[in-house]
């Protein structure tokens, strides 16, 4: 039984990590807390649903399309909402993303109503295969492997490409980066887009086993904030590890203490860690 709980927690943790990686980019790199991150995920799931519903493409097939769409949403968000307020000090950018979150949530309700939508007969079903007496869900495994691969891809992008290095340089010292000839405004737009692409991918991976409705991503969004803070701001590898820790803590906590309190365990871990290591477990 405990093995079953652990494996489910781990598999969920990979998806949490991918959602958090996107947030880590904007929060850690640009120092902007994007409250609309959950709504990006939500719009990714609706994109997956509508592509499936209208064209018949399974979310796993339409994943690249969804990634591009939410990348574009991220870039547009930067250009229309964030760019102007970046120059203003204080909490303006944070409040702008909060406003955007409300707008996107209400638009979701307006366009697609509060009805629950489900993707039926997906390419990978929720059936399980048995390993050492444990039931391992096929759809969870695909989502977890996909999330792991995409997280590694983002890490490689950040470390091996010129744009990735430019993003890191901008996060370390914006003025120095500008003096080195980096177009920081363009880098910010790409970072927001990349953040969107990550949640777009997560949305496509989750859409076949998560009911889709306007409130569907509220807790995913909250957990992403915890994971980023736990993993260390801007640390993608940290977000991956923290995602796994949260996934396992949630599952084990629910099993050992009580299912009604599984998020109590998650937030307690977070509170304890930030007291001991305010920059997160893997922050520098």
């Amino acid at each position, binding site marked *: *039984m405990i093995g*079953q*709980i652990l494996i*489910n*927690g781990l598999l*969920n943790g990979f998806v949490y990590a991918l959602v958090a990686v996107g947030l880590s980019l904007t929060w850690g790199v640009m120092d902007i807390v994007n409250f609309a991150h959950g709504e990006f995920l939500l719009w990714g799931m609706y994109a997956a649903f509508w592509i499936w519903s209208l064209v018949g493409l399974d979310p796993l097939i339409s994943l690249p399309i969804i990634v591009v769409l939410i990348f574009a949403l991220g870039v547009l968000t930067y250009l229309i909402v964030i760019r102007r307020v970046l120059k203003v000090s204080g909490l303006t950018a944070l409040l702008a993303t909060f406003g955007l979150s409300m707008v996107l949530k209400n638009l979701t*309700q307006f366009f697609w*109503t*509060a*009805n*629950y939508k*489900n993707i*039926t*007969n997906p390419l990978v079903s*929720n*059936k*399980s295969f048995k390993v050492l007496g444990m*039931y391992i*869900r096929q759809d969870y495994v695909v989502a977890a492997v996909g999330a792991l691969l995409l997280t590694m891809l983002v890490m490689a992008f950040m470390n091996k490409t010129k744009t990735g290095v430019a993003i890191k340089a901008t996060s370390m010292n914006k003025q120095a980066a500008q003096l080195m000839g980096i177009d920081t405004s363009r880098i910010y737009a790409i970072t927001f887009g990349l953040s969107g692409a990550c949640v777009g991918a997560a949305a496509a991976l989750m859409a076949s*086993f*998560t*009911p889709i*409705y*306007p*409130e*569907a991503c*509220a*807790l*995913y969004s909250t*957990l992403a904030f915890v994971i980023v803070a736990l993993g260390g701001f801007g640390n993608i590898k940290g977000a991956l590890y923290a995602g796994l820790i949260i996934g396992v803590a*949630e*599952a084990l906590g*629910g*099993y050992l203490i*009580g*299912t*009604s309190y*599984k*998020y109590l365990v998650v937030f307690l871990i977070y509170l304890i860690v930030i007291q001991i290591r305010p920059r997160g477990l893997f922050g520098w």
Partner: protein
Amino acid sequence: MKKNWMKKLMALALCGAMAMAPCMVKAEGEIPIGAVLPLTGSSTGEFLKAAMEVAEDIINNSHDLDWDLAKNEGILDGQKVALQFADHQASADMATTEAAKLLDDGVVVITGAYNSGCSASVATMALEYGVPMVCGSSSSASLTDGTTYPFASIFNRVAANDAQESAEFFEFLKYLNEKYDAGIEKVAIAWINNSYGIHADEMFQKYAGETGFEVVASVSYESSATSFDTEAAQIKESGADVVFQASYIGDLTLFAQAYSSLEFEPKMIICYCGGFQDASFAKVATDLGVNNYAGGQACTAVLADKLPVFSYVNELYKAKTGQDIDGPALEEFASVIVAAQAIQAAGSTDAAAINEVLKSSEFEAPYLITQKIHFDENGQNDVMPAVVTQLIDGAYEDVFPIDDYTTSEPALK
């Protein structure tokens, strides 16, 4: 320049407010009935609203049915009823505020509010104003136990409460053991941690004890959880023969997926109203290839041939929503119908007179299997308003009690 923009914006807002004004004021001669529902943030709200609008249509316009209320146009010599909707967003605090606004606006009866906690808030306000409430689909037994809340004098509920449902469900299990030798001994429950779930669990425990079934697990959960794999694994580990669920559509869907992935197929999964009655769950169960979900319903579409008024109502509802009317929607429909019948019988829109009628009359309900509605002293509809239906091959079949309306034998795992 900036000032000009501000002026234009204010003028636009004023025009908008003026354009909205007619929507907020009832027309002369109309009888206002309040309806407080979870219109945003819940998939259910708009279906409940559609059902209430069908009731409004039946009351206000002439329909070719063998039912006086439907034949005639309006009530009290042709006056139309006007439903005034408010959105409580599934928040008890919001329900209080919205109910107060409607009551200030002069509604003569108030209906709603689906979520049991919100219904309690609306009824508490209605008591302050001395206006009767007809609650459609909230199921918590505490609303009509006469002790938990002080509003019994103005409160009336159409739906079966979870005590009535529990009694019927355990009778059903006994019937399965006796007739089909089902061997059901151990029962478990998964319940959402809110007013609806807490009381469902209480009634489940009480009736399981009284009928001699062994409770092997009681698993509570938060509705916002991202998955219910741990909860489902605990239920499976308990070895329950039958699982009860007090869940809404989103959580029930995730539970169904989790049970299926664990290859856990209890003999029956019995649901306290909620998500089971949502027509979209039929698709989920069909997709998973399971026939072991059952639950209480006020009526079911497969009975359309036997109940012509229900069939007619269902067609009107289907034209609005594209799906068959489900249990909660039918109960909210009934709440508006009963309110109109009470106003008609009272002969006026005086709240006290309407309340007196609600507390002392029996109401014709040709759209329900029971054909009538009657409220006891605490406001509970005491004509058992639900049958046990089971989702068999995607259709809600009436499987218990065994009578003229039974449409199928139960499908046991």
